[in-house]
């Protein structure tokens, strides 16, 4: 379960001289590494130890049952304990001489300031979320410490090195919307239909298929967000895992024991579990709380009141969105069909989810929609759900192992003072036309217009000053879009009027006022500061009355630099980490893409991708994603159909 930012702190060095003879790379003593970490991170943890004798590790998370089959430092008896602590203990078993200090904490904690980052020779990221990645990127830029970024998505993965002023930073180009999400989003706080679809697919396996601890569907009590105190989270995790085993084993067993009673299942999933979630009140402070569904109440509902929701009454059946009552019935009906199918297969049999199997698809459609309704989302048609459900990418252990190895190898280059030898390395699913499964590419120089790593970061935001409130500016623009953690915003009006203060409560009175009430108009410049990130961004306001519907603001240049959809698959692919590694949004239906592919295949095969000189993006695409691009072309015919990676 990867709720929040997690981090492992590695402090290499103090190598006993005698041991130096063992390994070819000679490391400078006292090299220090900071490492943000999720799975590839933990996987690389042990690899590092032979060359580093002091390791500090930080991680906010506790170990979940679902971690066990992918993370070999953790065993069943460790469930509920701090990942950092257990990782330390496990490594010590094998390298008793290693000096490891573990912290159970978040990398985004303000204690880890620029000074803190500055002590390290190297920082390694294997984070699971954009916010933490952006944050660490800025901390490393501010501290001028090299950063190794990494990410995996299914069979694809990549590792890249970021060095201030030398290479692109993590935020040099806008990224497509993030398509990975932690397990607690699936289990506790879904905010998009896809979260509910993933949940429904997991539910299918929990009930009829192979029970996989990675695909837990019940409320996650160890959600770090529900308990800000890590100790509390740990306690919760322990509690949940103590009776957790019984619960986990019994999801299917319990369903069987009721004879797959649809009403009982419905009540557990859509009423009792939701009520339980509501008791985790911290989750709902800033979110709309879910509304439990009651089977009997639904039965008495009038169909017609819901039919209004139906967006395409004229469309074919698959494209219709039904009402809650109909989905409740479809849920019950599909359970009955699947129960019979399962029984026909005999004892111990399992069903395999297949989007082309109509009852399996009915089940997922109805369960996902009921959950969407509970979480106040607009429900989706069977047609839409089918295409989304077909594109879910599972997390794969072997990919993590490979990426972990690559992270360490790049780290060794930096530690031995050969950062110029570092490459961005991409892992393909199949070898590219040059026979490469792992493709090294030269690192790109920084984007001079980057609004993070440029010397004077500046950005233009198009918005309607009469409509946008200070709160929107703070939450959606400065925090969400520009990823500041605790921003201060002032108006460059000669007086330095404070619009937003990072001190709690100081500017709360401004929150619901429109920007125009502060004299902000076309051409006004706002200065946004994040003290922790040591980052100042100048925001030019471009007033506009004709923004697209539902769009509160638009960052000028975003579309040109790095489009979010099909026009430039290159950008999406080559961009770092989870979001970049998976070619999701490069929908590639355009003819242009065909051209790109042809160009690549015709390229001189003797030309080596490792050449530092050659560094155009096309080549990157070519080397890295030939098969990937081809694959996504057919798999992702519309920008609605994004690949999704479910992390635990």
């Amino acid at each position, binding site marked *: 379960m990867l709720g929040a930012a997690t981090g492992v702190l590695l402090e290499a060095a103090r190598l006993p001289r005698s041991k130096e003879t063992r390994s070819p790379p000679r490391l400078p003593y006292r090299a220090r590494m900071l490492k943000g970490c999720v799975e590839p991170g933990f996987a690389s943890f042990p690899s590092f130890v032979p060359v580093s004798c002091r390791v500090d590790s930080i991680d906010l998370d506790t170990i979940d049952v679902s971690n066990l089959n992918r993370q070999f430092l953790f065993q069943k008896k460790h469930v509920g304990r701090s990942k950092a602590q257990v990782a330390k203990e496990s490594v010590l078993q*094998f390298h008793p001489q290693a000096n490891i200090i573990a912290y159970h904490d978040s990398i985004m904690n303000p204690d880890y300031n620029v000074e803190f980052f500055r002590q390290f020779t190297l920082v390694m990221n294997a984070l699971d979320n954009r916010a933490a990645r952006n944050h660490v990127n800025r901390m490393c830029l501010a501290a001028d410490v090299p950063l190794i970024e990494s990410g995996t998505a299914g069979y694809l993965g990549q590792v890249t090195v970021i060095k201030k002023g030398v290479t692109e930073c993590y935020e040099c180009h806008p990224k497509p919307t993030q398509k990975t999400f932690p397990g607690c989003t699936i289990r506790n706080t879904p905010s998009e239909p896809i979260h509910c679809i993933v949940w429904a697919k997991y539910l299918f396996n929990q009930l009829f298929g192979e029970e996989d601890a990675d695909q837990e569907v019940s409320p996650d009590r160890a959600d770090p967000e529900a308990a800000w105190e890590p100790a509390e989270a740990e306690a919760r995790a322990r509690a949940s895992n103590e009776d957790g085993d019984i619960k986990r084993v019994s999801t299917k067993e319990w369903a069987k024991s009721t004879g797959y009673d649809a009403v009982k299942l419905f009540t557990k999933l859509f009423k009792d579990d939701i009520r339980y979630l509501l008791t985790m009140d911290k989750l709902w402070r800033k979110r709309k709380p879910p509304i439990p569904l009651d089977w009997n109440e639904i039965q008495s509902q009038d169909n017609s009141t819901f039919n209004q929701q139906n967006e395409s009454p004229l469309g074919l059946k698959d494209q219709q969105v039904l009402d809650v009552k109909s989905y409740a019935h479809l849920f019950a009906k599909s359970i009955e069909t699947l129960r019979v199918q399962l029984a026909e297969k005999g004892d111990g049999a399992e069903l395999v989810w297949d989007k082309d199997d109509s009852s399996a698809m009915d089940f997922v459609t109805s369960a996902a929609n009921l959950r969407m309704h509970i979480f106040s989302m607009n429900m989706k048609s069977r047609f839409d759900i089918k295409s989304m459900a077909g594109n879910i990418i599972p997390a794969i252990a072997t990919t993590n192992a490979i990426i972990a190895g690559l992270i360490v190898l790049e780290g060794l280059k930096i530690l031995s003072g050969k950062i110029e030898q570092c490459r961005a390395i991409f892992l393909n699913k199949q070898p590219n036309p040059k026979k490469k499964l792992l493709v*090294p590419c030269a690192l790109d120089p920084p984007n001079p217009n980057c609004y993070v790593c440029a010397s004077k970061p500046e950005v233009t935001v198009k918005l309607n000053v009469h409509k946008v409130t200070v709160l929107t500016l703070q939450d959606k623009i400065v925090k969400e879009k520009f990823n500041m953690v605790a921003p201060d915003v002032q108006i460059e009006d000669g007086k330095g009027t404070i619009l937003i203060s990072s001190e709690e409560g100081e500017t709360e009175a401004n929150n619901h006022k429109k920007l125009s009430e502060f004299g902000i108009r076309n051409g006004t410049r706002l200065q946004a500061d994040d003290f922790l990130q040591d980052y100042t961004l100048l925001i030019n306001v471009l007033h506009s009355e004709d923004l697209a519907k539902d769009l509160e603001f638009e960052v000028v240049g975003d579309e040109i630099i790095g489009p979010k959809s099909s026009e430039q698959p290159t950008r999406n692919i080559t961009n770092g980490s989870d979001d970049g590694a998976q070619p999701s949004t490069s929908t590639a239906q355009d003819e242009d893409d065909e051209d790109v592919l042809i160009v690549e295949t015709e390229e001189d095969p003797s030309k080596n991708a490792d050449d530092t000189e050659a560094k155009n993006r096309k080549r990157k695409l070519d080397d890295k994603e030939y098969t990937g691009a081809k694959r996504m072309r057919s798999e992702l015919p519309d920008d609605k159909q994004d690949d999704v990676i479910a992390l635990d």
Partner: protein
Amino acid sequence: MGRLSTSAECYLHVGDCLTVNLCPNGPPRFAPGALPASAGARRPARCPRAPQVCPDDAHGQFLLPASSLGKNRAEASLERVQDLNPMVDVKADPGDVEQKPEEFFTRFDVVCLTCCTQEVLLKVDQICNKYGIKFFTGDVFGYHGYMFANLGEHEFVEEKTKATKASQEGQGGSDPKKAKLDLAETTLVKKHIHFCLLKDALTLSWSTEGAKTALKRTAPDYFLLQVLLKFRTEKGRDPSPQSYMDDAEVLRQMRTDVLASLGVGTDLIADDFASCFSEMAPVCAVVGGVLSQEAVKALSQRDPPLNNFFFFNGIKGSGVVECLAPNLTS
């Protein structure tokens, strides 16, 4: 054998896997990937003929606690492997793989050898080929790692997706957005692929015109591997940092011999063998990850397998798949 599933996520159900020699890159680097992936396998994964645990192992291996010095490797790591995945039935066999009769191997679906001499590799590969057992071998020498696979006559399914226009197109009420939304139809295509014996893969003729052209595009690591296997065969060990100067000299000599016997130029491999010494844990992670994934693919019979060599160069960060079989160079 692995079960074929039509869903995108495929789970491996049953598969007996023999992992020979937990040494340098047996588990954990190889196994952590393989074991979780084979969750559901309830028959034994065996680890025979591991020599005694030496101090070197305790550094590179985290299946081997430091307290296990002097114990048999397979037995020492058993507990750890079992901990990793209780679903897999792991048995340790302290015997020597060289002494095992043919029948010993027939119990397995997959055999994976590491740290074996070329002689043993060729012998076991032959046996596996004869009984239709999927054969893998992999090793790490410093920054260089390789994997070889012989899946014999391998059948697999590949998911082909074709975007078919939604049938609703043109019907009443469909807005342009909807009409564009195609449904990716996936079909499973059955395919067959032939693998060659390790013996044939290592004794290719490079004298034909076609081969000479192919040579330019062939990873030099292939030839380096042959030199290192020769070293192992003749010295009974891998190049060691403790005898760096001597071993490097031996390697240079062997390079000349090996390349000459293969009929290719000595310049294919550089003089400096420093990158071949000591086993690099991160290189093991990469090669182990790839090998594990291939083992899963072989058992599940899904997706095209890598045929037949994978070479990883940890300095360049490059991983190349080479198909080096007799018919391809003639």
